[in-house]
């Protein structure tokens, strides 16, 4: 008999160095649990994230990609997250247009003080993506061997 393995998604979280990355740190020091599926990539600002980063993450096996930045108005570089918000809004909408499940992408604002929010967001996102199953629509078969 074959035992069905529980699907464990791979989640890539791009975290702004000044807030969400510290938020992730805080959730760790506060011993708040969030799944190990989340791989954090630290970026200097949410605005640093190029649409290509998101696509590449999917290509390389991510099942969901989340971008975390400072709350609007709190950007370390004053306006970076405003630009990031526009870009991601358009990109996510385009991915949806091409038929890629919209739940696989997310943008969240997490400050350095919001350790709990970080953990909660990640828990929720992992759960959502687990429900969706493996990313099949934006995968690169060559990377699956």
């Amino acid at each position, binding site marked *: 008999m074959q035992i069905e393995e529980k699907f464990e998604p791979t989640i890539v979280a791009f975290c702004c160095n000044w807030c969400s990355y510290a938020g992730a740190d805080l959730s760790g020091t506060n011993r708040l649990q969030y799944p190990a599926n989340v791989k954090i990539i630290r970026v200097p600002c949410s605005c640093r994230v190029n649409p290509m980063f998101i*696509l590449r993450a999917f290509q390389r096996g991510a099942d969901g990609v989340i971008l975390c930045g400072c709350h609007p108005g709190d950007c370390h570089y004053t306006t970076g997250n405003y630009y990031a918000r*526009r870009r991601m*809004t358009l990109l996510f*909408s385009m991915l949806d*247009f*091409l*038929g890629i*499940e*919209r739940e696989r992408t997310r943008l969240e604002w997490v400050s350095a003080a919001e350790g709990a929010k970080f953990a909660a967001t990640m828990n929720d996102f992992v759960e959502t993506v687990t429900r969706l199953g493996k990313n099949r629509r934006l995968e690169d078969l060559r990377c699956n061997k």
Partner: protein
Amino acid sequence: MQQVIRDKALSLLEAGKVDRVLAWKEGEFFYDQTPHVFKTAEEINRSLVYNGFSAANLSKYLVKETLKDGMIAVFLKPCDTYSFSQLLKEHRIPREKVWAVGIPCDGKLDIDRIRKAGLRGITSIREDGDRLSVSTIYGEKTVAKSDALAERCENCKSRKHIVYDELIGSEGEALDSGRFDAVEALEKMSPEERFAFWQKELSRCIRCNACRNACPACTCEKCVFDNPASGIESKAPASSFEEQNFHIIRAFHVVGRCTDCGECSRVCPQSIPLHLINRKFIKDINEFYGTYQAGENPDERAPLTNFDKDDMEPADAFRKGE
């Protein structure tokens, strides 16, 4: 109209106002015109053409041509002036080196649509009012002009010339086109259907780069897809991901700069409706951040180099669609 344009080109050249004239050159058949830089009156009288198949948008050639010495005259259809204006805005063309002549356009024809109507061996085409008389190896046929119109012209967004030095004919108006209808139809589908649709379309891509190289907004000196150091340079559609990646990123790079001139779909040898991807971005921008037409207003900030503190969140954008 062809004679009027020839005369205009000749007079500009003879008066010494310009040194070269950028227009369309006659081909072997009626429909296969090549963009060409005319340097002599003799050349203009022999082979400058303007008719229903003078479809190529000439504005991108100005980027290269204005690097050379001297003035160049260019003939621009209404939609071409949007591209021209956008290129001026991006400082890709020095305005003082170009003499832009606006010319009227009542829609360009698509030879593929005529072929699809079952006409083979087309050797010449004559425009007779709203009908086309087509000579083929297998006899004479007629086609309604409206059945041969290019998609972008069926859904023409504007007959207005944005920038010009002089205008031939009278000024048109921006039109209320149904250009977003096809995008809306896709939006109404389920994600599964949309995915299947794009798989079918994009899997035909042969990565010939015609869309990129013809696009008046794609004027980077070195494209990210040609740069090995970018890490995403892949020359071939080696996997379905590569196809998606190329077209998403290419469209994203021209967000807010794409004037919806439709060259990408016109030149695609595999007839992929690439304009739908660009139009989706345009439609989203209009809905999320207010109506914006690239190329229309040289002083306006582009949507991606601008922001509003109360912009919507990606999640709200999805909700809005429902």
